């Protein structure tokens, strides 16, 4: 029977999207059961029966570190969303500077 660990994540600190993205990286280590209660995400991590307590500790710690990283990524995404679109739009309009492309007509 698979052993489980429980983790509560404060949704005032981390978004639900963060939690899901973090968990997705560990699909080779545990399966996640997720329930939202109020402003908390209750995470039940189901490990393989062969996983030792030590391994489970390490993986849970990694999951928590990953939450921090995902939060950071969310910050970057939010701040750079507009400039990203701007740069990509500029990149895929005609610039005429690559190879034999014709010059842009103003």
């Amino acid at each position, binding site marked *: 029977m698979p052993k489980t660990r429980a983790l509560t994540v404060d949704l005032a600190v981390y978004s639900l999207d963060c939690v899901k993205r973090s968990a997705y990286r560990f699909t080779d280590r545990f399966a996640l059961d997720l329930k939202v209660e109020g402003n908390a995400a209750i995470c039940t991590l189901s490990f393989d029966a062969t996983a030792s307590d030590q391994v489970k500790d390490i993986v849970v710690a990694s999951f928590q570190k990953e939450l921090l990283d995902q939060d950071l990524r969310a910050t970057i995404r939010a701040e750079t969303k507009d400039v990203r679109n701007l740069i990509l739009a500029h990149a895929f309009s005609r*610039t*005429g*500077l690559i190879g034999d492309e014709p*010059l842009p007509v103003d």
Partner: protein
Amino acid sequence: MLQLAGEFTQLDGLAPSVQRQHFRISTNPALPKPLASEAAFLCRGAAVPSGFGLYLAHEGDQEVLEGAPTGSPKGVLPISAVYLCDGDILRVSSTAKSYRVVFRRGTRHQSILLTERCNHYCLMCSQPPRDEQDDWLIEETERLIPLLPLDTLELGFTGGEPTIYGERLVNLLRLTDRLLPYTSVHLLSNGRRFADRKFAEAYAAVQHHDLMVGIPVYSDDPGRHNYVVQAEGAFDETIAGILNLKLLRQRVEIRVVVHAQTIDRLPTLAEFIARNLLFVDHVALMGLEITGFTRGNLKKLWIDPYDYKQIMEEAVEILAAYRVPVKVYNHQLCVVTPQVREFCVQSISDWKNEYLPECTGCDLRAQCGGFFSSQVKYRHSDHITAQRLIPVPLAVETAP
């Protein structure tokens, strides 16, 4: 070092209303009359032909001028001008009784100063800016171009900042394209004027047959670059100028003067060029000339090239790996690593270069450009050593 400018010990017969006049030097007595009237005959003792616009002799030799036609303009040059020969062009000021050699036949690269005005104030500027109306320099150049021989290999336009002239510069470039169709032109500029799209387009519209603009970029760090050129916002405008020029398919060279303020980030600059400006036509890494502002700022600028030779090697290798054409100028071959030597160019003009006693017996001397006189006089590497190539024995000696 050759003295390119000086004063006549004697000068008579030139119309004083003509402030400056160009004369091509000739030693050919049979020069056809239409050409002779614009030329200066350099008398060397033999019979003096008639019909020349000016007759010249060197100090100590001036009695030969007595053979010149009466009333013709005559001038006596100092001994320091003894190097003058057929085909050189002199600019003569009759009011100041002075001359300047503006063109030397047989020298690979001719440099023409267009202005001393500049919107930068580089720490190591060898031509410190002067904020004076000096349009006469470009005006003279416009008059000089038609006199230059068709087989002139290369012409350089420098300053100050030549783009200050705007359309007048563009017209000058057009003139060189039309009148010197076999001559390549190298323009030096900080590139900022080309951020103006219209100006870049006018420049490109010349469709010069062989034109390249050399633009300094001193660091991948805008703050550092702006500091070296002493101008806020310089980096951004220079990059914008380079991009506009390349958009219009113009040839661009990036120039870097290597000294204490630019050496630390030279490899990251090389990477910046390789990742962002891979389309540049050439990169020139240049050694420091100890003239102009350099002397006053020597403490900030001086670093012995021998001490940075590993960093130099790293930067050159990065550019070479990315196949960016790169050359190293004004570095003696003994202060660069062996891997860098193939990129070194003998670049110091023949009227500027000298060697040291330490250079005696150096096997690389023929390929090495030597030193600027200013380096010999003021500051050069402490590690100048004659290099010996390991000789390959022609025969193996066997024991008897």
